[in-house]
């Protein structure tokens, strides 16, 4: 019996046709298993998953920064994960709240409470960082050195509903400067646009969130100077739509949390200058709930 098996094995190993036949049947047997595995994916009923990202930078920049995360999720979930954004913050909020368009939501901290309350989005993680704040920057050679110097000047900000705008307005008010009377607020479509407007001299100063500022090119940052920073807020939350079932939610959460533990995950996160994601309680965002009310 042992000899028979040995001889059969020898013939098999020496015959290319048998080897090819074996591979074919092997693949044929594996295919249903793979298919069953895919169908049994926790997120298969949500295919494709729409990864909605608030338009805090240009659409192209946004794709550059978040495509690696989308691909990472897609590879591990076994279903396509598509990046989407909106023309502006207001439309993004409308799509979030009214259309419930996005399956995974990457939105500004002050938008999350409404997304949660109005559309049922559930927080899964937030960017693993102590917090985030807005900065007011001016060109390095600018005569503006303190907040009072901004009076009578033009200050570029993100759209009115943007966190940076809201934080800066609060900060200016707290400092005794009326943002509607003492300075001229000029809305730009994104953080990049806000930063570049003063860099190119279109405005006198720019207000934007610190993470996009940190992600700006070195050349731009070397020629700018921070004159003020606002209070810190919790970092950007990532939540999921009510359409996403619990098991899928758990899987997405797990995948995001694991990113900072692997070399590949760190490499992906480097595109966003994120150190990783952490589990966060929804209550942490209560303190920014009132910003929109202002």
């Amino acid at each position: 019996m042992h000899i028979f098996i040995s001889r059969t094995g020898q013939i098999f190993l020496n015959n290319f046709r048998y080897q090819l036949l074996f591979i074919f049947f092997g693949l044929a047997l594996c295919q249903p298993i793979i298919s069953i595995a895919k169908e049994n994916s926790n997120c298969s009923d949500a295919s494709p998953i729409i990864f909605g990202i608030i338009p805090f930078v240009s659409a192209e920049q946004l794709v550059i920064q978040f495509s690696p995360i989308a691909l990472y999720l897609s590879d591990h979930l076994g279903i396509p994960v598509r990046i989407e954004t909106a023309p502006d913050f207001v439309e993004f909020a409308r799509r979030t709240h009214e259309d419930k368009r996005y399956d995974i939501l990457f939105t500004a901290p002050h938008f999350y409470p409404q997304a949660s309350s109005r559309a049922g989005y559930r927080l899964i993680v937030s960017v693993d960082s102590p917090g985030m704040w807005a900065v007011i920057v001016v060109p390095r050679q600018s005569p503006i050195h303190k907040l009072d110097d901004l009076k009578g000047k033009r200050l570029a900000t993100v759209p009115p509903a943007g966190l940076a705008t809201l934080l800066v307005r609060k900060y200016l008010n707290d400092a005794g400067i009326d943002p509607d009377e003492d300075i001229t607020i000029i809305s730009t479509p994104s953080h990049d646009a806000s930063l570049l407007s003063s860099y190119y001299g279109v405005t006198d100063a720019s207000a934007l969130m610190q993470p996009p500022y940190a992600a700006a090119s070195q050349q731009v940052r070397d020629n700018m100077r921070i004159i003020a920073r606002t209070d810190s807020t919790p970092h950007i939350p990532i939540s999921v739509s009510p359409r996403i079932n619990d098991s899928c939610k758990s899987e997405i959460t797990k995948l995001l949390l694991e990113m900072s533990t692997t070399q590949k995950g760190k490499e992906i996160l480097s595109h966003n200058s994120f150190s990783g994601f952490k589990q966060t309680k929804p209550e942490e965002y209560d303190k920014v709930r009132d910003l929109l009310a202002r």
Partner: protein
Amino acid sequence: MLSAIKNLFHSLRFRLIASVVTIEVIMLSLLVWNNISIIHTTHTDRLRDTAISMIQQIATTSGNYMVAVDYATLKEYLSNIISYKELSYIVVVDRDENAVIALGTVTPEARPKIDTHPALVNDNVFDIAQNIQVAGQPMGRMLMGFSLSLMDDAIHKSRNRGITIALIEIILTILVTIIIGLGLTRRLGLLSKAAGEVETGNYSVTVPTETDDEVGKTAAAFNRMVAEVSKRTQQLLYEEKRTQQLLTENRLLIKKSLEVQEEERKHLARELHDELGQCITAIQADAESIRDLSPECDHRVITSADAILNVSAHIYDVVHSMMHLLRPSILDNLGLEEALKDEIDVWKKRNPKISCIYDFDGDLSNLGERINITIYRIIQECLTNIVKHASASHVSIELKRDRENLHLSICDDGIGMDSAAPSQAHIGLGIIGMRERIQALNGIFMHETSTDNGFQIFIKIPNDKEQ
């Protein structure tokens, strides 16, 4: 008409002009065809490049709108572009191939087959597609259709313009070629005309040389040739005239000679008849008297007298025969027809193995002395020659007279002779003599013969009583 066309095709001028015009037409046609091909290629390539450039640029610009799902703004942006005159439609599809924007002459569901080049389009719309990508990530697809109508119009106009220019050029070429061709061939025409004049005998014609080119040299050579031909022709004419004069004189001499000969023969025959005949008659009368007067019928006297009578009778026969040869008296007494019949009958009796038939037609009574003796002598000579040389078994003689001419033919079925053989010379004198006699009467003498085909003589003498 056909002859005129044939002459036209034989004309050097026509062929020269037709050749140049044909070559021009072919070359210009090729040029126009090539230009049309280049125009078509240029236009189609331009449309392809424009279309590709446009769709790439628009797809790049549309990427941000697709990421933001801002179809309203994208549609507004594309609405401005669709007004581009060559653009038929724009369709934008998302990542699921759902049409999100459809502008122009197309339905949102339409997915036209993508074309590779405007030259390969069948439906008059050049359909192209471009993936919309942002940072390398697919965001959808853009389909655009470019109408070929404007391009076709432009090609059509360019082609018409090219054909018009070519036609004008062809017409101008034909005109210029005809003018130049006429100029170039004019002198050849003069040369041809002058050659025609020379052909008709006008040697006074000259062709102007004008220039020292090939035609001028040919004209000069032609003039020299014509001058030389004229000189030689004048010389030949002079020689011919002189020869003709000599011939006339010679014939006159022969005529006189024959007249003298015939007169002499006639005189000699008359003398023989008058003098020798009387003498022989006298001798015979004396011999008979001697025989009759011999006493007692002396046997020796009678024998001698009989011998004298026999000898004198023989002399008479010889003389009579000679007289007949010199001048057949029957010719003078009974005329040509009877003389010929007599001569032929005598000849037939002497040559019973040769059949001879003759046919005389027309009035032969008043042909004149010279014609009578000439015809008589020629028939006499021919019959003698037939006996001597022909080995013939049959001879036919035909003599006819009509209002203008006298026709004589003498044919035998003998061995004949090779008309080209040099040996003909040995009978040449007889033939020459006969020809001279006929030509002396302004007549025509012809003979035909070949080996084993007999000998035929044909004579025609004009009726002229003066002769």
